[in-house]
């Protein structure tokens, strides 16, 4: 019921956080889709799909991720100011976004490398990393929305 009685000043950061999270989910899923599609095409078409996956990762996923993470920090600072102990469900969010940022960076580097030449062995890693991150986002949205354990 906490969501029903939250202060008015939490609404904007919450809106931006959820918006960023849904955009991140959609952009990551698109990178995965293009990446998997790129595995099964003729070399020229595969390269084009991989370039597209890299561009979407850079131009949509990264800004969405930054929006999600910055808004999360904004609302976390309001809800748990200073050194207040954070609950487990919030820690799950930090776990998914902080090592998650490294995963996104690694995925983008691999996407960039695999978009440069045909037959790159890195090609298959990109859609699988994107799929892994989609699952991690799912775990975070379960923790954030259901808040198991309070």
């Amino acid at each position, binding site marked *: 019921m906490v969501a029903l009685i939250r202060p008015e000043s939490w609404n904007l950061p*919450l809106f931006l956080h959820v918006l960023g*999270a*849904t955009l991140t*989910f959609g952009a990551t899923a698109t990178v995965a*889709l293009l990446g998997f*599609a790129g595995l099964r095409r003729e070399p020229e*078409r595969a390269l084009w799909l991989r370039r597209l996956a890299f561009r979407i990762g850079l131009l949509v996923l990264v800004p969405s991720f930054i929006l999600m993470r910055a808004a999360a920090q904004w609302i976390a600072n309001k809800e748990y100011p200073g050194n207040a102990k954070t609950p487990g469900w919030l820690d799950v969010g930090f776990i998914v976004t902080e090592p998650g940022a490294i995963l996104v960076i690694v995925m983008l580097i691999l996407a960039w490398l695999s978009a440069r030449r045909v037959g790159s062995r890195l090609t298959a890693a990109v859609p699988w990393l994107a799929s892994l991150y989609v699952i991690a986002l799912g775990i975070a*949205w379960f923790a954030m929305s259901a808040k198991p354990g309070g």
Partner: protein
Amino acid sequence: MNLYQWLLFLHISGAFFLIGGIVVAGILHFSAIGKQRRPSEIATLYALVRFAVPLIYLGLLFTFAFGLWLVHEAQFGYGDGWVVTAIILWVIGSALGSIGDKSQRETRLVAERLAAEGDAPSPDLRARVLSPLVLASTYASGLVALAVLGIMIWKPGA
């Protein structure tokens, strides 16, 4: 976890499926816009949109069904202004999305036919991709989904 927590999780999952699916479809549609896009490229991108469609329909179902259940569980009223507005926008957004989906399916079939007939860039196909009806319905459905998200968070008048 109590019933309210489960319902909120399922309702928010619906929002993720719905907006995430719209984002996937929107990005792929936007990627198909290009002067030199060949029909086979457009067909490939529109074929991938098909994966987003079940996600969008699942999102529509989850947001609506679990949203109504949440209204009851959280003791809001079904006649509250923000609830009624959200339902009206949900219906408008669904209708707009359905128009865009139908048009994109037709465009994909045209793109597949042109790809089989030599795969040269086609002004007619480009006109279909850039159709004001498709662009307006696709992007308006996304904006409506955002408006509903805003209503869910601010709950004006609640």
